[in-house]
C-alpha cells in the first residue's frame, strides 16, 4: 500500500490555521470534502465520530504527530488527508508535545485491514526524524506532495 493511494495530492495543507483539537479536525474534514472524498452532507456525522474516537483516547502518537481516524458509512474506501500546523496544536499527546503533523483517515464500516495497514505505513514514514522535520518545514503543498512521493518510492523499495 502506498500513501498516495489514500491521500490524494489535493488533500494536503501545508499551513493549517486551526488552534485547537476540534478546530483542526474540522479543517481536515473540510479538506476531505473539498476533494470530494467525503460528501458535504455527512460533515456533521463524520465530525461526531472523529470526536467520539478522540474521547476514547487521543490519537496523538507522540513526536508531534496525530492520526485522527474513524469509520463512517459515508465512505466506501479508505480516504485521508494530510495537514501541517506550523504553530502546533495541543492534542493531548502522551509525551506532552504539541502536534504538528496530522494524518486524518476515514474508513468504511467493517474494515479493519486497510486501516491498520495505513496506520503502519504512516508510522513507518514518520519514524524518520528527517521526514518529520521536512514535512513541518515544507513551504507549500507542492513540497509536501514531493516528500510523500519520494518516501512512497523509498519505502516500497525497502
Amino acid at each position, binding site marked *: 500500500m502506498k500513501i498516495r493511494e489514500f491521500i490524494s495530492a489535493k488533500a494536503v495543507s501545508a499551513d493549517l490555521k486551526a488552534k485547537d483539537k476540534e478546530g483542526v479536525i474540522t479543517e481536515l474534514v473540510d479538506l476531505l470534502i473539498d476533494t470530494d472524498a467525503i460528501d458535504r452532507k455527512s460533515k456533521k456525522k463524520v465530525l461526531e465520530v472523529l470526536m467520539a474516537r478522540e474521547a476514547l483516547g487521543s*490519537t496523538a502518537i507522540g513526536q508531534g504527530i496525530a492520526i485522527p481516524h474513524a469509520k463512517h458509512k459515508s465512505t466506501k474506501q479508505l480516504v485521508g488527508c494530510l495537514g501541517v500546523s506550523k504553530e502546533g496544536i495541543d492534542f493531548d499527546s502522551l509525551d506532552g508535545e504539541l502536534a504538528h503533523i496530522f494524518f486524518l483517515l476515514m474508513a468504511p464500516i467493517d474494515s*479493519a485491514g486497510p486501516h491498520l495497514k495505513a496506520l503502519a505505513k504512516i508510522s513507518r514514514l514518520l519514524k524518520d526524524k528527517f521526514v518529520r522535520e521536512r514535512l513541518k518545514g515544507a513551504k507549500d503543498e507542492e513540497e509536501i506532495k514531493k516528500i510523500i512521493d519520494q518516501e512512497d518510492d523509498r519505502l516500497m523499495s525497502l
Partner: protein
Amino acid sequence: MPLIRREINVKNPQGLHARPAALFVQIVSKYDSVVTIQGNGEKVNGKSIMGILTLGAQKGADVVIEVDGEDAQIVADELEALLTDEEK
C-alpha cells in the same frame, strides 16, 4: 533480573491499532521494566506508539514481547491481558 519472553496471539478485534498501541505504551510507562515487541520480523521499543503501529499486527497475528526488569512478571501479565482483550 528476570527476562520474560512471551509469544502472544493478538485478539483485539481490529488488531494492534492506535488505541491498544496507546494503552500498551501507558502500561509500559507505569513500570520500570524495559519492553520490546516483535512482529513481522521487526522489533520495536514498547514505549513507542509509532513503533508499535509499524508492526501492523492484525487480529490473529503472533507477536513476541520481551520484558526485562524486576517487575517483569506483572508487566508481562498486563500486556498479555491487553493484547488478548477481545473488546479493545
